[in-house]
């Protein structure tokens, strides 16, 4: 469903139709069965800074990859200044006039600033060889031109601060004099975003088109007149940013789904005994995180990418160690040094990590061997594992996760992603742990598997277990959790429960907006 707002008059008001620098018409992209982009349509005019907004998983990063020539679109058409644009590689895109400052930064830590700025073709001196002095001169020129003269061209990039690296990444993208500049979350690490705004405005005035991808609405309002919203791979827009309220934007990002009734919270009984209590937990990316998880309760964690949720879950799973803070299980302090200890501590914590393939399963082993792993002590006699007993235990449990019995004998690598995930969940159930720490358990699995996983979680908490779940899909959290914590920049930005637990509320908190402020503005 494509929700199209009314055409907006061009800010210039000129009657002559201008050929847009970038025109995207119905672009789609699927990875196997997963549809990343369904249909994206947008236009960016010369001199325009166009905002692209969307939740995690809405397709922003796939769209950036298509624009930068890293992946090719499945369908639809792109054109640049009126001519078809189908970049086959990053360099191809750059030659056509599109350059990208990547969110994950594409700088080489072992090279100097000057070498990074001139990659992949260093400037040559008299002998046809790269000339350090010419490269450094070029770097100095760029750094001065773009107001970053405090960075030495001779510095090794690994020694720079994150903010300095981000500035170099942006300067490198700009230095190719693109027709279209793609900025992917460019201010994530910048302490002083005004620096970027000045440069972008200056270049826009000279006719460059910019696609500005950010989740910070205040910045988008500061810089962009028009924007497009991505939701589940579909584009909505163009919208006039100034005339659209924050709440309307959140609603567009979230869509109709938010009206779905929540099922879990009302239905089950929350027993008030505390299963896990965390306080003052501080690590490399989290600060002073505290909360409690009760028996019979599902607590959701919502956050945009990289707000510390990964570290929090890994600490609770015993994979990472906190710098400070305490974790107590049923009232007694524990020190989780390994996943094994987490399983053994108190009533047990079982962790389902995010990287299924690299952290969760043993690809070369059978499904059966994978799921019975935590039981090996119980299954073995005199240190030897009886494969018959192993199979019997697994077969007994298998209907709980609706996995076909014949799959037990197969190598787990032969299973679909959804079935692998079911097997992994079955394994944590078999482990007997009473608390589950699930990091994005439904990522990349099909709808049926999702439903199974929901049911398993349901039954688990009804039996008195407790679940902490992070998901990139907000509707899932709204549906499953009794309460939902929101992490922003490594801190708990807020907690929503009951009637207040809505996708709009989660998006607002996750993008750093004060929820009280939004409510009061709404009532005013």
């Amino acid at each position, binding site marked *: 469903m494509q929700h199209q707002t009314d055409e907006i008059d061009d800010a210039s008001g000129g009657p002559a139709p201008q050929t847009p620098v970038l025109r995207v018409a119905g672009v789609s992209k699927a990875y196997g069965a997963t549809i990343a982009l369904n249909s994206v349509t947008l236009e960016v005019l010369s001199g325009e800074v166009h905002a692209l907004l969307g939740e995690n998983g809405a397709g922003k990063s796939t769209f950036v990859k298509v624009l930068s020539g890293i992946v090719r679109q499945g369908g639809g058409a792109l054109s640049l200044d009126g001519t078809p644009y189908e970049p086959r590689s990053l360099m191809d895109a750059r030659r056509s006039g599109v350059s990208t400052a990547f969110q994950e930064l594409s700088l080489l*830590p072992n*090279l100097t600033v000057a070498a990074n700025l001139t990659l992949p073709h260093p400037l040559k001196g008299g002998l046809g060889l790269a000339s350090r002095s010419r490269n450094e001169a070029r770097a100095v020129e760029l750094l001065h031109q773009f107001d970053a003269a405090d960075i030495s061209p*001779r510095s090794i990039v690994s020694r720079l601060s994150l903010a300095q690296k981000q500035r170099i990444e942006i300067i490198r993208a700009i230095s190719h004099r693109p027709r279209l500049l793609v900025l992917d979350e460019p201010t994530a690490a910048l302490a002083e975003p005004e620096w970027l705004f000045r440069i972008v405005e200056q270049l826009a005035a000279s006719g460059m088109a910019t696609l500005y991808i950010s989740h910070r609405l205040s910045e988008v309002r500061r810089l962009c007149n028009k924007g497009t919203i991505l939701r589940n791979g579909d584009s909505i827009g163009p919208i006039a940013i100034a005339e659209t309220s924050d709440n309307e934007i959140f609603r567009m990002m979230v869509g109709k789904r938010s009206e779905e009734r929540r099922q879990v919270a009302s239905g089950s009984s929350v027993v008030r005994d505390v299963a896990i209590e965390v306080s003052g937990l501080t690590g490399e990316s989290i600060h002073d995180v505290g909360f409690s998880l009760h028996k019979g309760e599902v607590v959701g964690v919502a956050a945009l990418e990289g707000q510390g949720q990964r570290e929090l879950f890994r600490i609770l799973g015993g994979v990472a160690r906190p710098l400070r803070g305490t974790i107590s299980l049923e009232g007694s302090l524990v020190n989780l040094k390994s996943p094994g200890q987490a399983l053994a501590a108190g009533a047990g914590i079982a962790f389902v990590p995010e990287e299924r393939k690299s952290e969760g399963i043993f690809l070369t082993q059978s499904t059966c061997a994978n799921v019975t792993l935590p039981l090996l002590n119980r299954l073995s006699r005199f240190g030897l594992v009886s494969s018959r007993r192993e199979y019997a235990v697994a077969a007994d449990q298998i209907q709980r996760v609706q996995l076909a019995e014949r799959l037990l004998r197969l190598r787990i690598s032969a299973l679909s992603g959804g079935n692998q995930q079911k097997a992994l969940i079955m394994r944590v159930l078999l482990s007997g742990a009473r608390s589950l720490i699930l990091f994005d358990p439904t990522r990349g699995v099909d709808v049926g598997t999702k439903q199974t996983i929901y049911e398993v979680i349901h039954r688990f908490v009804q039996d008195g277990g407790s679940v902490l779940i992070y998901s990139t899909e907000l509707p899932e959290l709204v549906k499953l959790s009794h309460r939902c914590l929101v992490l922003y920049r490594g801190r708990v930005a807020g907690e929503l429960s009951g009637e207040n637990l809505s996708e709009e509320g989660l998006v607002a908190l996750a993008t750093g907006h004060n929820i009280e402020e939004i409510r009061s503005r709404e009532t005013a």
Partner: protein
Amino acid sequence: MSAFVSRKVSDQTADRSIRLWLGNGALVVSILYVLLFAFYAAAQGDVFGLQPMNDLANDTLPLALAAAGGTVVMLTGGFDLSVAGVISLVNVCIATQIGDGPLNALWGLLLAILIGLAVGMVNGALVAFGKLQSIASTLATMIVCSGLAIVVLDAPGGNVSDFIADNATDPILGVFPAAGAIALVIVLLWLVVRSTAFGVAIYAVGADETAASLAGVPVLRTKFLAYSLGGICYGLAGFMLSAVTATGSPSAGTPFLLLMFAAIAIGGTSFAGGYGGPIGSMVGAALLVLLQKALFSAGVSSFYTVIFQGAIMILAVLVGGISASIAAGRSR
């Protein structure tokens, strides 16, 4: 105020140069070399004449060449085990197939380079385009080459032509060791390669493949070329080994495998890729060879040599690690 600022900046640059100086693995190992050489001179006596210098250079060069090639691959983040097979294969080919005289010697040199290049290209294709693990692919090519070497010459023997054995190992015009000259040429060539887009790409790929490709670096081509270049170096190492030993053996390359990695580690190149360089590895190789000679002249039984080589590797890695962490620590 402005005077204060500029003073501060110059302090920083001084500090930075100290850090670069400490973090440079080649420099650390060079200092170790000078110290060991002093010990060697004391134990041996006459070491500064042309002939002893020439002998030392001849003994050092094969390992130094191999280590230089292995380093290029290591910088991209790969391991190249094929060195042992290539050296053996080249050695038996030179000892059995190449006649006397300058033209034949030239053909032998070309053959050595071609064998190395061919194996390197296979390695590069398997790792870059076939996406196979470097250790597994190069282990396979090493085994194939060792097998081929046995097919060519099944037991030590053969004869390296006098022209090669003499001209590649005697001082040039009676004044400068040929092996030393070749080493200098390799160093100069590396300085040239390092100053090309390919040279920068080697370091970029080794540090972070994803970032490198996002920065527009042709990752696959860079890897392929790095293995090919490494192969050429092993071929040259095999040629020089044949000239020095003047005989053939199907297992001539075997000792080079572990010593090459030791030389690379001693020279300060990171086994994770992206940091270091062939020059450090060449000095590292020289250090290992000098250690052998110094221990021999000090009367230590050759049985102990290997133990000392391992010990000095630990020492060099420790010293390199400590000075690198001091260098990094200053900046934090």
